């Protein structure tokens, strides 16, 4: 599928705002800091708390770290955009992503460069001044840049959801009861990425614990939390019966539902995760659509009475939609029990 002219403009603008400018800022910052290296102490302050500097490191690591983080983030945002919009879709989530990229970049790059530059001429990094005010200025600057980054990108939305098609209700005899159940899971690549990340974190925790640092229990907490999150959001059971639609994780929590009386319309749609929801997982799209997005493609879409849409990616969505349509039609006709 080839992208339309609108999408091409949006994509170019994203690459400029979210990738080229942040990369340029990073390079300028790194060059500036390298040129300051002879003027700063060999060990510089790298972290501050409320009362002054409390973290220190060799001066050369600061420009190196900035380069890695700054360019790494650019690569990450570029990868998300390029892989997510291969099909030629675009949406407000991507515009936000572009703005987020440049805003984050300004916060990090300007903040680090400023705190580094302040230490020129110091004999001991412990004398580094407080950076509270500088941090505030950077935060405001980052927000402003992000906002401008949002404005200079065009508002393009490809209608990824127009293929939503309504279905013929399933033929049910009077008094016939039916249930549709299906398990929906994150695609294999996603699962591998998540499992490998958690494993890496677990190994990191062990290494940190072995090194004698007390930070290990914080890392353990994060690892357990992430494992629990993965466990509850990688697989969902989707059920349609005369009570409505229920989507729940194998552990029972989280659990999402649309009661049968709240069903206004049912359709089968095709989801483009990045363009519509900004990614995978339990998502709220900018237009208020709530999505349980575990993969691209076939999905069941339910419109609630208040107009809000509920989308869950699941195979055989047509059967689910046909049954839900039939059951909600029956619920509308029958007086509530």
């Amino acid at each position, binding site marked *: 599928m080839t992208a339309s002219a609108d999408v091409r403009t949006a994509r170019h603008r994203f690459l400029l705002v979210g990738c080229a400018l942040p990369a340029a800022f990073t390079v300028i910052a790194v060059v500036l800091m390298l040129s300051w290296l002879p003027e700063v102490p060999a060990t510089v302050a790298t972290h501050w708390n409320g009362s002054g500097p409390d973290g220190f490191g060799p001066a050369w690591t600061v420009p190196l770290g900035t380069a890695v983080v700054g360019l790494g983030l650019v690569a990450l945002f570029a990868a998300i955009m390029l892989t997510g919009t291969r099909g030629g879709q675009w949406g407000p989530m991507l515009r936000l992503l572009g703005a987020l990229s440049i805003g984050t970049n300004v916060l990090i790059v300007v903040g680090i460069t400023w705190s580094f530059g302040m230490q020129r001429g110091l004999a001991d990094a412990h004398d580094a001044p407080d950076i509270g005010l500088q941090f505030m200025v950077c935060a405001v600057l980052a927000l402003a840049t992000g906002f401008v980054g949002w404005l200079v990108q065009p508002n393009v939305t490809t209608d990824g959801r127009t293929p939503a098609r309504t279905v013929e209700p399933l033929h049910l*005899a009077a008094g*016939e*009861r*039916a*249930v549709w*159940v299906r*398990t929906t899971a994150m695609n294999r690549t996603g699962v591998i990425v998540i499992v490998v990340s958690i494993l890496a974190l677990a190994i990191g925790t062990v290494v940190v614990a072995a090194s004698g640092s007390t930070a290990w229990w914080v890392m353990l907490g994060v690892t357990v939390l992430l494992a629990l999150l993965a466990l509850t959001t990688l697989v969902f*059971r989707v059920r349609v*019966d*005369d009570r409505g639609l229920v989507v729940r994780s194998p552990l029972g929590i989280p659990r999402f539902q649309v009661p049968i009386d709240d069903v206004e319309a049912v359709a089968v749609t095709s989801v483009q995760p990045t363009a519509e929801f900004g990614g995978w997982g339990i998502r709220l799209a900018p237009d208020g659509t709530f999505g349980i997005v575990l993969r691209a493609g076939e999905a069941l879409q339910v419109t609630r009475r208040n107009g809000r849409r509920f989308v869950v990616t699941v195979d055989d969505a047509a059967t689910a939609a046909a049954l839900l349509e039939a059951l909600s039609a029956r619920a509308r006709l029958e007086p509530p029990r």
Partner: protein
Amino acid sequence: MLIRVDPASDTPIFAQIAASVHADAAAGRLRAGDRLPSARDVASSLGVNLHTVLRAYQLLRDEGLVDMRRGRGAVVTEAVEPLAQLHHDITALVARARTLGLAADTLAALVKETYR
């Protein structure tokens, strides 16, 4: 997978549940290794007795279509593949019977007779 029961039908409820699973298998909606929903969930969704659903699952186990394992529930076996392979033939046969004005029971009786 879709399970439907009609209390007004002459067929016993447990047989209707088993027939629904057969239909799911034949429609290619079930694959070997898939897990059937828990009997408790099905019973509560359909408003039928838990033992009725368990009886249906036992029937399917006796046929070899599912494997019942403690803690894993009812898992679909390889026996599902032949059913799925017949899917197109059955759809075609039913469509043909319908255009000829043949009732479902008549068709079923004919198939049974021929199979003998």
